[in-house]
């Protein structure tokens, strides 16, 4: 027989746990629902396809969308060769295991630093030399995302079976040929996952970009855009809500960002799943 006291205890704990679960679920649902409900009605074609103009009394987020795309492109173009190159070197070439351990640890630590610190450093390093610009922002994001790309690539390099390398070496292939033809194809998934996660971080980043890339809303071409100041969607969200009180626009942007984040998480999960299946 279980004593009544014990029964009461078990039931209390169970109810508390159900409440905690419900609260977590409801909060998420409320947040997503609230943003979408307030945001979606404000998303119009005009908002998406025009620049803001005081003369026409119009708010448009086209420049912010373009800026976001530019900064993602610039960051990935720079960070991919650096991150993948570093990962290949550390995993395939480096012989000093202790040094590799230290670098890996540093990379992990780097991803835990508050992004505003990257912003401060980026401002002093890049913006002060090349002016506040998307390029300065992109370079700051490169530093932030280097560990993401590097670690993801490294982890997936480690899953390439040693037997593949031995097989290729056994046929008289040189080190670089083995890496290029047998090892690299096996780590594409890791690189893709790293890229998706990086895009997510770039989309969500505000603090580091406030310092380095600025707030301008001017639609430019890629090259010109990179060399002038500009707000990404996330920064624009801050500017519209906090400085201009344009809450309709802010919520429209929030809804767009939310949808994009969900999409990114989904694709990251899909890539990871596909790649786990293949490794079984």
């Amino acid at each position: 027989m279980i004593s009544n006291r014990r029964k009461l205890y078990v039931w209390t704990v169970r109810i508390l746990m159900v409440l905690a679960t419900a609260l977590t679920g409801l909060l998420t649902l409320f947040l997503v629902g609230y943003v979408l409900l307030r945001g979606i009605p404000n998303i119009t074609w005009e908002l998406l396809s025009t620049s803001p103009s005081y003369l026409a009394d119009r708010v448009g987020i086209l420049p912010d969308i373009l800026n976001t795309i530019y900064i993602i492109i610039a960051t990935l173009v720079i960070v991919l060769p650096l991150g993948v190159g570093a990962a290949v070197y550390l995993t395939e070439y480096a012989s000093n295991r202790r040094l590799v351990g230290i670098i890996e640890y540093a990379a992990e630590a780097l991803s835990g630093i508050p992004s505003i610190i990257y912003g401060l450093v980026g401002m002093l390093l890049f913006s002060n030399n090349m002016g506040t610009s998307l390029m300065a922002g992109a370079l700051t994001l490169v530093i932030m995302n280097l560990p993401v790309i590097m670690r993801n690539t490294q982890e997936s390099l480690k899953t390439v079976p040693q037997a593949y390398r031995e097989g290729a070496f056994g046929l008289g292939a040189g080190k670089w040929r083995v890496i290029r033809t047998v090892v690299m194809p096996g780590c594409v998934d890791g690189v893709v996952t790293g890229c998706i996660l990086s895009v997510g971080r770039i989309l969500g980043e505000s603090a580091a970009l406030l310092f380095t890339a600025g707030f301008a809303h001017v639609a430019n071409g890629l090259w010109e855009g990179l060399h002038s100041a500009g707000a990404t969607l996330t920064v624009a969200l801050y500017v519209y809500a906090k400085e201009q009180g344009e809450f309709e626009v802010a919520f429209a942007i929030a809804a767009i960002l939310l949808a994009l984040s969900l999409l990114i998480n989904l694709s990251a999960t899909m890539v990871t799943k596909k790649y786990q299946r293949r490794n079984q």
Partner: protein
Amino acid sequence: MKPIITAKDLCLWYGQSQALKNIDIAIPEQSITALIGPSGCGKSTFLKTLNRMNDLIPGVKITGTVEYNGQSIFDQDVNLLRKEVGMVFQKPNPFPMSIYDNVAYGPRTHGIRDRKRLDEIVERSLRDAAIWDEVKDRLKKNALGLSGGQQQRLCIARALAVQPRVLLMDEPTSALDPISTLKIEELAAKLKDKYTIVIVTHNMQQALRISDHTAFFLLGELVEYGDTDQIFTNPADQRTNDYVTGRFG
């Protein structure tokens, strides 16, 4: 018969522990030499020394000489050495690419790009490895879809495609079922007309069935080396006798 590989006073250390002690051996051309002995006796280590696969392991130190074709293997270009002295591993390890690309990997590595020549090499190698009829209709399919035994014969074909003179086999049938094992053994017997084969095996019946010469290793030493019949019927060393009659190992 003329020896193709000779080792003299070969010693090998993994860090502090000595895995091979003063090995002297001469492996004759176009024959099958079996390396037998209990686990950890150094037979696989010795095999991997012959095409310098031990170079990949950090902390390995080697003294003494190993000659292939009359020249020290440590003075030869390692990639060319491995082209001449090919290897088949314990677990089948086809690359995750098509059957065709697996076999063409070696020739492509050594600079053959011509499509027609590659086609010829792939067909010849797969025929030599007795797997052509099973895969000729699905050369473009992924090699990982083959059965274990087929994968191992594909790996043999892949090794043959670079036209080696010596084929090192590291327990090539230990991961396979009896029928696949038999096929690999038949294949080995056929291949010795063209190639020199050195095979590590745990299976003494296998050594007896296919090899011409047998080397018995124990605790890093080469205890006895001679004709297979002599090793199994009339060993000179008591330890060899105990091992081949199944008293330990």
